[in-house]
């Protein structure tokens, strides 16, 4: 077994184990951290495949940015684990049976045969081969169509996110300048006709009369 293979199996084992931990640990923060570990091991596998740019992007974008945001969200949410686990054991035998059947089927197809070959020659590049340059060359030429489509998918994601979360608050106070300018006298001032009788103000007159004397 070459050193490459050994490193591959190590990364692969860590990736699989941490992926299993993501869905089995009780604490959601731990689950998020295990997901980080799974990403880092996948990045390691990509490095082995000479995809250095992708490996670094995975670490920078997913581990550095996405997962940190994710951790914030997880910490802010009040997750009731007991309620999430409700009905878990009821469906557990069903799920396990299904998983075992699938594993047996996969082994039947893949297991008892010689290793599957890809039939494609894989070339190793020199250490100074620029993976980034190579990627940049094809992504804007040969793969420009799916690249543009990916951009449209992101645009749709933005539109969808705004459409689903933007709420016009009814209790928010704001000025409508147009309405302020268009205001008429009648909107603001109300003339109330008051009865003016001598008797009703007689008390006042007496009081003022006393003052004079």
């Amino acid at each position, binding site marked *: 077994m070459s050193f490459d293979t050994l490193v591959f199996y190590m990364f692969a084992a860590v990736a699989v184990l941490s992926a299993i931990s993501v869905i089995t640990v009780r604490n959601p923060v731990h689950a998020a951290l295990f997901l980080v570990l799974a990403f880092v091991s996948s990045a390691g596998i990509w490095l082995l495949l000479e995809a250095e740019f992708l490996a670094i992007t995975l670490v920078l974008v997913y581990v550095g940015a996405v997962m940190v945001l994710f951790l914030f969200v997880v910490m802010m949410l009040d997750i009731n684990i007991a309620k999430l686990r409700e009905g878990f054991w009821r469906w557990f035998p069903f799920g396990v049976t299904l998983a075992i059947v699938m594993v047996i089927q996969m082994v039947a197809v893949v297991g008892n045969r010689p290793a599957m070959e890809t039939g494609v020659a894989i070339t190793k590049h020199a250490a100074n081969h620029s993976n980034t340059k190579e990627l940049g060359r094809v992504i804007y030429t040969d793969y420009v169509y799916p690249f543009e489509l990916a951009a*449209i998918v992101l645009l749709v*994601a933005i539109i*969808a996110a705004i459409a689903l979360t933007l709420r016009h608050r009814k209790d928010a106070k704001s000025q409508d300048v147009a309405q302020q300018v268009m205001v008429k006298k009648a909107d603001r001032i109300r003339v109330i006709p008051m009865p003016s009788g001598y008797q009703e103000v007689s008390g006042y007159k007496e009081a003022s009369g006393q003052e004079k004397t």
Partner: protein
Amino acid sequence: MDYLATLSPLYAEIFLLVMACTILIVDLFVTSLGKTPTYLLVQITLFGCAFLTVSTYQPGIVHLFNNMFVDDLMSDVLKLLSYLSMSMVLVYSRTYLMVRGLFTGEFMVLLLFSLLGMMVMISASHFLSLYMGLELLALSLYAMVALQRDSAISTEAAMKYFILGALASGLLLYGISMLYGATGTLEVNAVSDVIARGAADKNLLVFGLVFVVAGLAFKLGVVPFHMWVPDVYHGAPTAVTLLISSAPKLAVFAFVMRILVEGLQPLLVHWSGMLIILAVLSMAVGNIVAIAQTNLKRMLAYSTIAHMGFLLLGIISGGLDGYGSAMFYAVVYVLMSLGSFGMIMLLSREGFEADNLNDFKGLNQRSPWLAFMTLLLMFSMAGVPPTVGFYAKFSVLQAAVSAGYISLAVIAILFSLIGAFYYLRIVKLMYFDAPESHATISVQPGSGLLISINGLALLALGMLPGSLMSICAVAVKQSLLLP
């Protein structure tokens, strides 16, 4: 040749993208509740796309972008039908959405983007562009299902759709990565060539194929990958249900044709066996479970599952007859589905959904014309002559019998007979039961006219199916280079 001129098969897509972005901005300045300017712009866009698709027609098969994009007769026909059904969706759903406060600019823009996704799927000849188109369509649909934010049932439906959809995309991608590993290419035609040469590992291919078929089955909504269909159809606002059950079925049909029939043709023996199981299970579960439903949207969801089983039967039969009849079936299904969900929206009003079977009781006394249109739609769904549903089923069965799948054809007929029960039950409710409410039905002139055209078209196509059938047959023949 001028570079822009070489892009001519892509003009419709580019136009749609530009217009969708323009409408997104224009809509900010439209404040009226009816959104009439936005609505008209969207309809003009759809018409413009149709014009561009027709005017840039080139005979033969044109590939662009390193064989990632393909333009052939099948893609042109399916695109034109998609524009038409999107336009019909808008006419049917306008009033319905308006009274519910959902007729927003975002709805129309997402609708256009979902159409763009379908167009990409329809004319993709590379696994990467196929997948991107699928995701564009799916993402727009997830958002549209969730658009009614204050309804718990819609949110639940959107959540289920999103999670199961993501799972299916994962399965599909895993399968595609296996195929890539085996063949070293993602181009549909090149994959087919490599497999035909015998240069690829058979086990790896079959292993990948299982996942690809599972992913496709989910997107088609066939048993045992159908769990999302009833919940999403029931939970989504009816206008979105109408959208999901119409044009995307054409896109998924193209998707299946591109992947299985064009790309994995040499593995026919493997995938046709899988499809037989999926088709039989779908027809059984769809038709039998639909009987137990009291909600019309759920019932139509199960009926969709059964219809998709029938569609697969056409693809299994293979050859010009099989693929042609499958395409014909997809087109007819879309037409029937548009009418049925359109009818639910027509009978609904503010604060009331006509999605229960009891809401159709005595419809004949309330509105004989709408009852007659529903009768035509249900007869067509059940496959009663002289409606086109009969001819669609008949041509698929004919293809199956001539391909030697006689037992499969017998099973399909048996389940269709079972299925006829629940369609005819609606006819019985309309004509022989007393109405539960006597509220007047106010029909908008636009959607009223459209439902009449839709219903009568089913009748007319049933009597004269020749032209549509020959269009489908020629399209499939030219695209797949069949003898």
